[in-house]
């Protein structure tokens, strides 16, 4: 099967900022992403768990598959949102089927 190089960017960010991040991605021309739930975690700001939570608290994991040449634009857009906040950004090399969709 023909595969195409891509970058897989994973952004773990506080739930109240989800729409700000996806808006920033949209503006940067990144229209493909998948949002996955996070039930707990630990980091410099301590441990937390989603159980019983009220309101829009907790974190989410936003995953983008993107052409390698567009990575920098995405990271800059994402970083502007994530920078002052709790959150983690990581990038992995990946390959995708159906590159025409990216």
């Amino acid at each position: 099967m023909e595969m195409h190089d891509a970058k897989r960017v994973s952004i773990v960010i506080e739930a109240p900022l989800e729409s700000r991040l996806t808006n920033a991605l949209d503006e940067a021309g990144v229209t493909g992403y998948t949002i996955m739930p996070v039930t707990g975690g630990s980091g410099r700001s301590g441990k937390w768990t989603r159980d019983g939570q009220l309101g829009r608290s907790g974190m989410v994991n936003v995953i983008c598959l993107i052409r390698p040449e567009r990575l920098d634009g995405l990271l800059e857009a994402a970083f502007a949102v994530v920078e002052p906040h709790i959150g983690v950004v990581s990038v992995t090399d990946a390959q995708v089927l159906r590159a025409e969709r990216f």
Partner: protein
Amino acid sequence: MTDILDLAAANLISPIILSFALGLAAALARSDLTIPEAVAKGMSIYLLFAIGFKGGVSIASHGVDATLLSALLAGLVLSFGLPFLAFALLRLMTGLDRTEAAAVAAHYGSISIVTFVAATSVLESSGIAAEGYMVAVAAAMEAPAILSALWLVARGGGKGGMAPGLLREILLNGSIVLLVGAFIIGGLTGEAGFKEIAPFIDSPFKGVLCLFLLDMGLIAGRGLRQAKGVVSIPMVGFGVLMPVISSVIGLGLGLLIGLSLGGIVLLMVLSASASYIAVPAAMRVALPQANPAVYLTLSLGVTFPFNLTLGIPIYMALAATAVGGA
């Protein structure tokens, strides 16, 4: 005095308070008892819908008296004003910096709807009526405190502030929309509508509140366990002092605008209570440097249980004395 103690004692052994205590104890003992997030959110939607609806129905049946507008105004004044008091107290009593202090202050200007609901229950059990539109006052008090806090930070030259879209987000916050929306529905459908859905929004209400408070106890307990080292003794002092002072200010305003005894108590409770849903989310967006452990612990771990157990009886006693002596 014995009256307050009696009321406090009766209050303390109600299923509602004991459920909170159970949750708190379970979390502190590190039990794995948890309530799924979706269930907790479902219960909070239920409570907001029910309380808003009942407020609207009460307006529909008893009519709007002249104090409605002044009560709404009083709520706005309190929500805008109390953060300044809280900010000053925090800077005086604790070592929190401007931003942290402002973030905490926003919580104390806003309100806790569950404390409001608990107070409503106690009033009902004591046979004291209150204005139905106090629900609308509660909704009006949710958001303004956030603006005051942001102004306090901005004035100090601090970073953060009104991110684009934040104002719309705050005002169209799910809790406010649901509370106000249900209030309007209740007002439009009145007693007839209430009768149709009372077996859902009225009869099981207290029971749902028990489970909801169980969850709040669990969250507060988990928070307290993780807040070691973050929250100092003076901060805890603030968490108890602030609601008492706020309640007295609420009492003054309530007397001024001529609310009933029940209405005054509810205005005191709204003044005294601190937010733990809408404001924390807004603070994560607007003041991300502020540590959530501080404001959540104070609001949910100190002030909420204080109000629930001792606060409400105290405010009722104060209000009774003031109204009786007026």
